[in-house]
């Protein structure tokens, strides 16, 4: 069953769109990776869904189906309605766990605030639930942890605490914006495992925003690649990592460091150039200037559509490339 259906989501700050006609949908309990370089619009798109942009115009729709069957459009609900949705139906964790907790309140105070807000729990009950949640996210001594201020915790522990706070309201959807980027590699793996086990237990869907394909490959069910504000490929993880269709995806995969590139002699290929700024986009494919497979026509003359190339009836593997068929041969 569909959990979130994003249609034609656009974000601009008075100039050319930063997020440009982004559409995708995800099922309940699905983990979707939103992948792209800096400047691709992935963070802006997720903040727009959360209503955390501050300023900026958001267009299009993002229908979220709640557990009770109601639907709410994250792209256009009022800020009052949004407060009833955030934390309870949609939560978010961020890149930098070091600065994402209030430095002068104890972990306990910050958790009790969320528990009172979303679960109506106060006093002893809130305390007990906080201990339970911290235990669930793998904090060894939850009782002691509650009395500490964030400064006393490691980055990995803080991200666990933040995850515990994010899932306290048992949301249907969790947005995770580079949640492991600031962590040690070993801790990264632990946090990823934790997120997977939480999904398995609660069935919450997750949008995992990352620029790191290795991280994405270890957790995701679907991969959605963003480039210059547009979706350029949307594919099941298996199909994506086996045979990406869009040249940009191929280049990204090629540029991702794997075991062989760390220990082997292979020199890591790099992707030349950078994402064009919103004002410098041509009329054709936005990746064309950097693409090895570029042909003047159609690549520079016409913006390719996002077309579904999946074999099966109910499957989605969408790609935005005018030459994908030639290239697949």
């Amino acid at each position, binding site marked *: 069953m569909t959990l979130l259906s994003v249609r034609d989501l656009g974000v601009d700050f008075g100039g050319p769109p930063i997020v440009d006609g982004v559409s995708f949908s995800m099922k309940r309990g699905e983990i979707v990776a939103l992948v792209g370089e800096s400047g691709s619009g992935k963070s802006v798109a997720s903040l727009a869904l959360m209503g955390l942009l501050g300023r900026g115009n958001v267009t299009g729709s993002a229908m979220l189906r709640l557990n009770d069957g109601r639907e709410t459009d994250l792209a256009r609900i009022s800020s009052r309605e*949004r407060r009833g949705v955030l934390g309870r139906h949609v939560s*978010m964790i961020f890149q930098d766990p070091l*600065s994402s907790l209030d430095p*002068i309140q*104890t972990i306990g105070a910050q958790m009790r605030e969320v528990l009172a807000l979303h679960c109506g729990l106060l006093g002893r009950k809130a305390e007990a639930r906080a201990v339970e949640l911290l235990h669930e996210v793998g904090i060894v001594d939850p009782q002691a942890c509650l009395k500490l201020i964030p400064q006393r915790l490691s980055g990995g522990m803080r991200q666990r605490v933040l995850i515990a*706070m*994010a899932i306290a309201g048992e949301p249907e959807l969790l947005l995770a914006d580079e949640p492991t980027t600031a962590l040690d590699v070993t801790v990264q793996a632990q946090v990823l495992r934790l997120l997977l086990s939480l999904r398995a237990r609660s069935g919450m869907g997750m949008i995992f925003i990352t620029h790191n394909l290795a991280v994405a490959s270890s957790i995701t069910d679907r991969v959605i690649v963003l480039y210059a504000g547009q979706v350029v490929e949307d594919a099941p993880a298996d199909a994506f990592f086996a045979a990406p269709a869009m040249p940009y995806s191929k280049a990204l995969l090629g540029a991702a460091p794997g075991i062989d590139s760390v220990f082997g002699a292979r020199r890591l290929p790099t992707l030349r150039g950078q994402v064009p700024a919103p004002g410098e986009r041509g009329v054709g494919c936005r990746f064309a200037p950097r693409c090895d497979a570029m042909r003047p026509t159609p690549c520079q003359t016409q913006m390719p559509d996002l077309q579904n190339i999946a074999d099966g009836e109910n499957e989605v593997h969408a790609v935005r490339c005018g030459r994908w068929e030639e290239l697949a041969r």
Partner: protein
Amino acid sequence: MAEGMLAFAARRAGVNVLLLLLVSLTGFMLLHATPGGPLAQFSLSPGMTSERLNQIAHSMGLDQPLWLQYVEWLGGLLKGDWGHSYRDHAPVLSIIVAHLGATVELGLASLVISFLGGLAMGLVGALRAGQAIDSLCSLVGVILLSLPTFWLGLVFIYFLSVRTGWFPAGGLMSPGNASPVDRLRHLALPALTLGLVSIPVWGAYVRSFAGDTLNQDHIRTARALGVPGWRIVLRRVLPASLLPLIPIAGVYLPTLLSGALVTETVFTWPGVGRLFLDSLQYRDYPVALGVLMFSAVLVLICSLAAELLHHAADPRLRA
């Protein structure tokens, strides 16, 4: 942890004693280096002879070498004998204490006005950063800051006292009227004058601290978890903005408690500030030096207390 605190307090106390010595020495020497001197007022009296003048100088100890005068004065200070006023021979300490009540009353009242006003102005500015009301707040701040205290005081006296008769023009209370209402009515104008001109100072600090806090990641986290805006301000922005104000208050408070010279003069407020000006005018060295030392001690006590309070209030400093 407690030992660290104790060592900190002990070190600070040592430094403070040195500072006080320095203040006493420079204060004493500066005052005695000024022309005129305490004998000037006697020398103009009719029928004064130089013999009589020497007698007076001898009785006041003014004929002794300066260093000896200093040592004797310092020794007295340490024993709690701050000397006697040249004017009415009353003990200096009891004169200061007699004037302290009025100063504390005015100081605290103006502090409440300026702090609450500054808090409101700073928070509004930070929460509506870049909007019209933010610009309005800074404009009002600049205007208040550039108002001369004596002028503002005179304006208040003219419009709210002389023209309308709503408030008394000066003094601590009406003669023979000890009601709290009467005292408050006397307090209103000087407290408002002193408070208003200090609002932008607090406002600027709060605006800056609250603005910094609002830009921090943990505010975004709280929003993402659905915490309502008023709660974010109350539980996160306010405490984070108040904590760094504690040491600043420690510096600011003694300037209030050692007397607001201008305001006390304009409103004939019998506080420590007025006492200091008067004693300078009359070359009443013991009283002037007494007020000076009293202010120095206040500065040190307040800043030490503020630092201890800051340590106790900020959990990050306790770890």
